[in-house]
């Protein structure tokens, strides 16, 4: 093993070590010991990632097996790494955001009794995510995929005394099972038709697969594989209709909302599809499917963000919408744009979430935006960094989000794939919606009248989104007359550190990532998907792009959104209420999240319970227990008693039986002879 290979191994193992230490020996090493060991683990992983990044920049990539687990039936199960531009970018994002979240957690969770457990989980998550992105084979990918799912489940239900948290983590788990089922089918198809789980070997056979049809159904094989894999991505990256778990996952503590449910885990699906670009490129059907799902998510989840009152839920729906943008980019073969948006989004969305968390701390764990307002005075750092994050999110020129989102919109514009017209409409309108809900939140929280400190006994307890702490020692919300205050340095430092890339990273990396040869040999697109090439021809540097952006439609849509938000919530606060009354049915539809939850509860959960009940009552109790178990026992007992009756004790009957036996055997012989 070379030194570099040891370094690769160090990246996932350092957080794993931290997780084990904090998890198993948390009591012994104490609270400070726990956060020191886990933060050190993640910091080491980040530092190693930086070194690897420089190594990859120098042109040293790696693809190889470190350990062969077993060989069975011609398949080899291995642990291996593929280190290239895509991997190292993901490694940097994951370790950096994770490091920020680790630091932030010291402040956010300071009073929580599950402090060590929390650190153990988030380090374990970091390990899992790194295993996922560094994998060079489907087995390890699936391991990481499931492991991040598990940690996500554990963290959503972190406050396990709360029924809503348990409901949310169960929901996340079940919905992800649906996606994972598709994912596993996809991997199974790949293994069945290529006999390999190694990326490189599978990609080498991609053209061969494209020409094949499935054995029984006759479906085009590659399309089936890609759609199955994408169903997995839909679960993990919360695309319609498997998105329902993500808003509920806000039941978890805010740091993990930032780390897992905004910046990293939910992008695993996007990453996976980008990684599989050699396969997806060969199936236009699958790409159209991806495109339409992504576009739908981008627009319709954005709408839901408009009517939320819980600060975290606004950010959650915003995440859904932005994941939709990334998926759209995948659909139009702009994989590099998707990954680029993934990266910029990771920074500004983590920033927004942590900012929201800081607000929540300041508000003493009240999350209702209707009780906030005018916080900029009391929480200047939070205010300013949140403003930067919001600007990045709406795609204000020169900010990170601008470059990535504009590239996606341009790529959709250039695409000729079926469904691209619909997608263009969705992403354009989505820009307005994004700007509107982002600044609605910004104005409601940081500006306007100070609505906190009142006796807010009148505000309804929604149950599923208004408490954040384990309902023990805190009162929640601010007491009358109490003022919010700025959060401590461990909270604000990550905000500042995240704000820097949120502003700058797009400007500096768009050229190499989208139009340079950074992703050369990693991401593929076929000749007839030329969106990115067209973009490259029109690209004349980041400054020119930003200046051009100001004259383009998306910019004005965004400005329109901001202006509308300003008008509605700063100038005439009575308008939203009036609209709400006028368009009552529409509001109800949005308030019920398009009835996805109700539908799932009645049709899938109810149906499954009904089926279970039928099988239980009819199948298990009736057929198996009643007829087969007890019935066969009764039958055996009956036959047993009958057969005992033959044993009369009379000698002549015994002799008779023997003679009958001889006759039976003779008949046998007569028939055969």
């Amino acid at each position, binding site marked *: 093993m070379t030194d570099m290979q040891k370094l690769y191994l160090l990246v996932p193992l350092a957080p794993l070590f931290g997780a084990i230490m904090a998890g198993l020996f948390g009591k012994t090493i104490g609270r400070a010991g726990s956060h020191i060991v886990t933060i050190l683990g993640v910091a080491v992983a980040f530092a190693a990632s930086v070194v690897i990044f420089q190594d990859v920049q120098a042109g040293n990539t790696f693809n190889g097996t470190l350990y062969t687990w077993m060989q069975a039936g011609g398949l080899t199960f291995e642990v291996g790494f593929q280190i290239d531009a895509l991997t190292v970018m993901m490694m940097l994002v994951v370790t950096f955001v994770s490091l920020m979240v680790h630091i932030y957690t010291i402040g956010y969770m300071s009073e929580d009794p599950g402090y060590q457990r929390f650190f153990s989980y988030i380090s374990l998550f970091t390990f899992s995510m790194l295993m996922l992105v560094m994998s060079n084979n489907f087995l390890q990918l699936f391991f990481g995929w499931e492991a991040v799912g598990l940690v996500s489940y554990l963290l959503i239900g972190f406050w396990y005394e709360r029924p809503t948290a348990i409901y949310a983590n169960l929901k996340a788990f079940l919905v992800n099972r649906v996606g994972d089922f598709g994912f596993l089918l996809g991997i199974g198809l790949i293994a069945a038709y290529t006999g390999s789980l190694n990326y490189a070997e599978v990609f080498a056979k991609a053209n061969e697969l494209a020409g094949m049809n499935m054995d029984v159904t006759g479906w085009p094989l590659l399309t089936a594989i890609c759609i199955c894999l994408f169903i997995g991505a839909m679960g993990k990256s919360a695309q319609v209709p498997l998105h329902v778990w993500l808003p509920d996952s806000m039941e978890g503590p805010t740091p993990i909302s930032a780390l897992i449910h905004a910046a990293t885990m939910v992008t695993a699906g996007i990453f996976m599809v980008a990684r599989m670009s050699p396969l997806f490129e060969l199936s236009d059907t699958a790409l159209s499917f991806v495109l339409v799902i992504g576009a739908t998510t981008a627009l319709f989840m954005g709408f839901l963000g408009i009517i939320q009152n819980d600060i975290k839920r606004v950010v959650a729906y915003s995440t859904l919408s932005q994941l939709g943008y990334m998926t759209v980019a995948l659909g139009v073969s702009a994989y590099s744009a998707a990954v680029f948006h993934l990266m910029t989004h990771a920074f500004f969305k983590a920033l927004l979430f942590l900012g929201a968390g800081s607000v929540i701390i300041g508000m003493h764990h009240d999350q209702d935006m209707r009780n906030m307002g005018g916080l900029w005075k009391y929480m200047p750092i939070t205010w300013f960094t949140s403003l930067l994050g919001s600007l990045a999110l709406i795609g204000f020129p020169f900010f990170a989000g601008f470059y990535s989102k504009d590239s996606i919109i341009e790529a959709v514009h250039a695409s000729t794939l079926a469904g691209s017209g619909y997608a263009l409409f969705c992403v354009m309108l989505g820009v307005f919606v994004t700007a509107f809900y982002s600044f609605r939140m910004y104005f409601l929280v940081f500006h306007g009248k100070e609505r906190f400190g009142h006796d807010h006994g009148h505000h309804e307890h929604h149950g599923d989104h208004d408490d954040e702490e384990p309902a023990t020692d805190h009162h929640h919300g601010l007491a009358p007359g109490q003022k919010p205050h700025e959060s401590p340095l461990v909270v604000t430092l990550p905000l500042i550190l995240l704000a820097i890339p949120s502003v700058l990273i797009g400007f500096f990396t768009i050229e190499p990532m989208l139009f340079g040869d950074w992703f050369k040999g990693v991401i593929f697109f076929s000749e007839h998907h030329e969106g990115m090439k067209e973009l490259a021809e029109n690209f004349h540097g980041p400054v020119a792009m930003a200046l051009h952006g100001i004259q383009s439609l998306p910019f004005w849509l965004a400005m329109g959104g901001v202006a509308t938000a300003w008008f509605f919530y700063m100038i005439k606060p009575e308008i939203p209420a009036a609209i709400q009354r006028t368009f009552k049915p529409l509001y109800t539809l949005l308030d019920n999240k398009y009835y996805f939850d109700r539908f799932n509860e009645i049709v899938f959960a109810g149906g499954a319970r009904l089926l279970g009940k039928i099988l239980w009552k009819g199948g298990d109790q009736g057929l198996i227990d009643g007829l087969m178990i007890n019935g066969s026992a009764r039958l*055996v*007992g009956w*036959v*047993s*008693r009958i*057969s*005992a009756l033959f*044993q009369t*004790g009379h*000698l002549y*009957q*015994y*002799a008779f*039986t*023997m003679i*009958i*036996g*001889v006759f*039976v*055997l*003779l008949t*046998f*012989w007569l028939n*055969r*002879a």
Partner: protein
Amino acid sequence: MNFVVPDFYPAAAEIFVAVMALVIMLSTTFARSIARSLGYFLCQFTLIAAAFITIGTMHGEVSYTFSNMFISDLMGDFLKVMIYFSMAIALLYGRSYLADRNINKPEYYLLAILMTLGMMVMVTSNHMLTMYIGLEMMSLALYALVAFDRDSARSTEAGMKYFVLGALASGLLLYGMSMVYGATGTLEFSGVAQSVYNQAANKPVLLFGLVFLIAGICFKLGVVPFHMWVPDVYQGASTAVTLILATAPKLAAFAMAVRLLIWGLFDIAEQWQTMLMLVAVASIILGNLAAISQPNIKRMLAYSGISHMGFMLLGLLSGVVEGDRHFALNAYSSAMFYAVAYVIMSLASFGMIILLSRAGFEAERIDDFKGLNKRSPWFAAVMMFVMFSMAGVPFFIGFFAKLSVLQAVVAAGYFWIAAVAVVMSVIGAFYYLRVVKVMYFDEPVDTAPIHAPAELRVLLSANGIAIAALGLAPQALMSICAYALLASL
């Protein structure tokens, strides 16, 4: 006419046992005062010495003597040693039982040794007449033994039933032998085989005789529909005799089946296999089902024995598939392993009944085993080993016995038979496990301490341990069976 002095060497053990039978008869007649102990010890001495002689004269080759009426081969030697061994243990287990009931007369031991001699002759016969003589010698001694407790009505009734039905079975067997003689012109097994092989035999007559041979064999094995005597006789005879009846004679009957069917009639294997198939499946089904409703443990074990013999036959009937004799060795050695395993388990099961019984108390109801764990945890464990092993729970010897015959059946392609056998074993597990359940979970009815001589306790413990140990390492016994058969065929 020349009289050639036969080679006595291969028959040394038989001659020794015959002489010792006379010695026992004379010495116990004249030394009346110590006759009981003398009979017992001479009997044990005979069995042990015979074992040494058999092992000492054992050699790898097959040899014939007494004008080819006598065969000496490894299979015979191995079965004989197993017979001595099981007889010796059975006599040891039964000794205190007989003494408690005041029926330990010296004639008991004389009959036992004559019976042993009969079995030895059966095992080593190469001729239908010697086979028949051995069979009758064994049977007559057994009839007398079953009725030995002559003051007991049940015992004499059982002896009577056994005698009448046994006579009928002997008649059937003899009739079959005469048919075979008519068809082939010889009674010597190798001659019969030769004649069948050359197609010289009159086939309809041969097959007609075969049916009667099968009937005779099945009676001795006690399989359906020639099983009716088994429950009554097992229950009626005193437990010490049942113990003898349920063990060594099964080995002799196995030998009889092998000699008659495989040595003599291998070339019409597919004919007798189909007959055995019917018999075996019927035995497995009936034995297991009928055992369930038996409150008497001796009767239950009788039905269980019927199903075990059915299982053993599964091995014998899987040897030849559509003319392919490839599986024969495996199948027959699995049957032999099954027979030996059954004898070992059977010894322990009846030994346990003897252990719990005392003067005036037979301990032959399943209820008498209630709460045994509280009275004696160790012997409850021994009984549990026996029951688990009989039920075929891994990893006891009974499991591997069942496994190997089922492997033979499956290799022969009779999947439906294997399926029936497995399902019936599951049903059969019920009544074995019921005994375990009453021992461990019910309150004891009989709280008297267990009185038994030390040698019974020690040997029974060793028997229980052997069931478990042979289950953990069954390979040695299996390869002995396979080797003995391979060297004899």
